[in-house]
């Protein structure tokens, strides 16, 4: 075993990259759950975003357009979920699971002709001034723009939820949809918009995998990242900043165990592979989760 082959700066730098797809998907799901909707279809929306983003990026040559395409694709799939659960009042858990299976199949179908292609390159930013700081520069300030988009989205979601009127209404809808309806707020409309936002974020997370992390298209390439995003939302107690912690912890342990595997640590690979999941769950459980939104997962019907 040769631990000296692990470069701590590179390790920390790749942590942020590894965490970004989960962070993107999780912040979207957090907003959805704060609106009182449990969408278990994150995995399906991520993989759909991954293939849509890849297709658009390859055909236009622009990774930015790819990300926009991924967000649109994820949001369209989420809208389907929204119509089924909010208008047709189907069960959210069953519909979410179906959405995951549907997304996996749909993406495989759509991506058939794209297997083996290479995505257009999405260069890292070297942020002037900050990027030149020794040690911190390479760790924090020399990434591709989507890493920062993810963090900005978290900050924006926190600001929206806690500082704006619309965010207050969204939380109210999630907390007690009957009361929100009685006060005259449009429960279904708020929820469908939140669901679409969640789908767009999941799509961005998926496209980050197919355009930056891998970067090519393979079937089922999300490999459970959507489920981790869902778990992190719960364990973060529906609080945006703890979401960042959870995602970075997960990303960090993932990168570390990959490095340890490469360094030939004498532990069976299976233990190393499960370590990110275990570490994330243990830490977030110890931090004691917050309270779930009161109406989470319940069907809303504006009966008399």
């Amino acid at each position, binding site marked *: 075993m040769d631990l000296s082959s692990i470069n701590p700066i590179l390790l920390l730098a790749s942590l942020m990259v590894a965490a970004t797809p989960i962070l993107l998907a999780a912040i979207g799901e957090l907003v959805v759950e704060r609106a009182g909707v449990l969408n278990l279809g994150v995995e399906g929306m991520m993989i759909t975003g991954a293939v849509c983003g890849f297709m658009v990026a390859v055909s236009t040559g622009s990774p930015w357009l790819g990300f926009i395409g991924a967000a649109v694709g994820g949001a369209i799939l989420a809208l389907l979920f929204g119509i089924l659960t909010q208008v047709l009042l189907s069960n959210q858990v069953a519909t979410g699971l179906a959405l995951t299976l549907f997304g996996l199949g749909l993406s495989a179908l759509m991506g058939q002709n794209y297997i083996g292609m290479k995505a257009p390159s999405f260069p890292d930013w070297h942020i002037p001034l900050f990027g030149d700081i020794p040690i911190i520069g390479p760790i924090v300030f020399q990434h591709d723009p989507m890493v920062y988009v993810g963090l900005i989205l978290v900050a924006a979601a926190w600001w929206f939820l806690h500082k704006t009127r619309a965010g207050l209404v969204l939380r109210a809808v999630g907390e007690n949809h*009957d009361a*929100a309806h009685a*006060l005259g707020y449009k429960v279904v409309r708020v929820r469908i918009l939140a669901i679409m936002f969640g789908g767009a974020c999941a799509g961005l997370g998926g496209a980050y995998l197919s355009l930056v992390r891998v970067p090519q298209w393979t079937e089922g390439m999300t490999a459970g990242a959507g489920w981790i995003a869902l778990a992190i939302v719960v364990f973060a107690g529906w609080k945006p900043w703890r979401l960042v912690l959870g995602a970075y912890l997960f990303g960090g342990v993932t990168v570390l165990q990959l490095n340890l595997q490469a360094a030939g640590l004498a532990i069976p690979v299976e233990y190393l592979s499960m370590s990110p999941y275990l570490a994330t769950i243990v830490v977030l459980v110890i931090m004691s989760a917050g309270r779930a939104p009161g109406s989470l997962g319940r069907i809303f019907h504006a009966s008399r």
Partner: protein
Amino acid sequence: MSLISIQGLTKAYPGVVANKNVSFDIGRGEIHALLGENGAGKSTLVKAIYGLVKPDSGTMTLEGEPFTPAEPRAARAAGVAMVFQHFSLFDAMNVAENISLGMENPPPQNEIAEQVRKVSHQYGLPLDPDMIVGDLSAGERQRVEIIRCLLQSPKLLIMDEPTSVLTPQEVEILFQTLRKLAAEGTSILYISHKLEEIRALCDHATVLRLGQVVGECDPKTTSAREMAEMMVGMVLHVPARREKPLGDVALTLTNLTAPAPHQFGTALRGVTLEVRKGEIFGIGGVAGNGQDEMVAALSGEMRTQTDMVKIAGQPAGHLAPNARRAIGLCAAPEERNGHAAIPDMSLIENTALTATTRKNLANNGFVQWDKARDFAKEIIRTFDVRTPSERSTAGSLSGGNLQKFVIGREIMQDPDVLVVNQPTWGVDASAAAAIRQALLDLAAQGAAVVVISQDLDELMEVSDRFAALNDGKLSAPRDAATLTIEEIGLMLGGAHDLEVAQ
């Protein structure tokens, strides 16, 4: 000139006409009562005024202008505010956020907090804007709703059954606030079926029955009995008491002592009492003085030392509820949805849940559903429970009907000892009379009955002996026939429990 005038308002739902040609006026600064039994159409009517329901026909005018609110926002903008029966509050949010959600164009949060402090003190309803609403008491939660309305300076304030969750002291504070508001020119539409409250508070009453206006009166000069008979449309049956000899001691509590079961509970301190067969023992007291714990200790939900509770001389303090049912004690707790019955289960299933032991509804661990169904049908028929079928869920029944079912289920098991807590809480007048009569009949057949209630009139009507619970201690029992209301007031513990809740 009246503030709001309603002419010929009609609203029909598939299969039922909720309001039929309803007309009435509310004057400025008037406290107007809307009276009616459950299902008389009160809620639909106020929802129409608040813009939650669109009437099929009829007109409303507010200050002489046509008033057709399409949604609650429009109603609020026009100066109509409403305090809901089931509070429309958000538990995980603080007071200021909750208030902000109920306002049109609210100012920023810190200004709201300032206004909440000011207005709440002005009306004697102190509130801390930073408190999380889920931590507040029922009375404080209602204050949040009222302050939310007051911040918008409403012309008309609608209150839907505001006192059903309040203690008598909180009710008094609420009435002072409402009188002050009315004196300042705000009109109040007050919905209730508590007649004595309406007599104490309101200037004018409109009585609804089956969706139609059946009468108007001045509640200050009309007796509660006359109003109740207008509501139900028939002469009310006064529970008849039969003289009966008392039998052996059926229930004995000896120095019943138990720690508080949870943080907000009350410890029981040395409760001693004896109830004989054929006797109804009434226990009064302000909520939260050990009533729930008393029922739990009697029913077997809370175990105590073996000798503290004896059923027909048999030590039973260690027994679980089903073992107590087997030797003759049945109980009906206060909360019918979720404690006495499971809302999402059918009446048949709810029957099987408590009656299996005494009615032999199970055979080798298998429930005999046909027997359970027959028993449920029998309860429904005997106690006149209005339900489409015994397969309906408990939660789909109105409060009064479910209460009749819950009490009936225990009575029809023919217990030797029956314990009931708040048997007519939130139940309309005719159902309440039927339940009281059933309790009297059960005692006449030779059962011992313990009635725990906060309704003193009810206790005086049914009980043979009376005692008061105060901070977990039971006063010495008195013969109910010779007691006066003043003496009861003293038994309830004098002034120290009656301080204004801050």
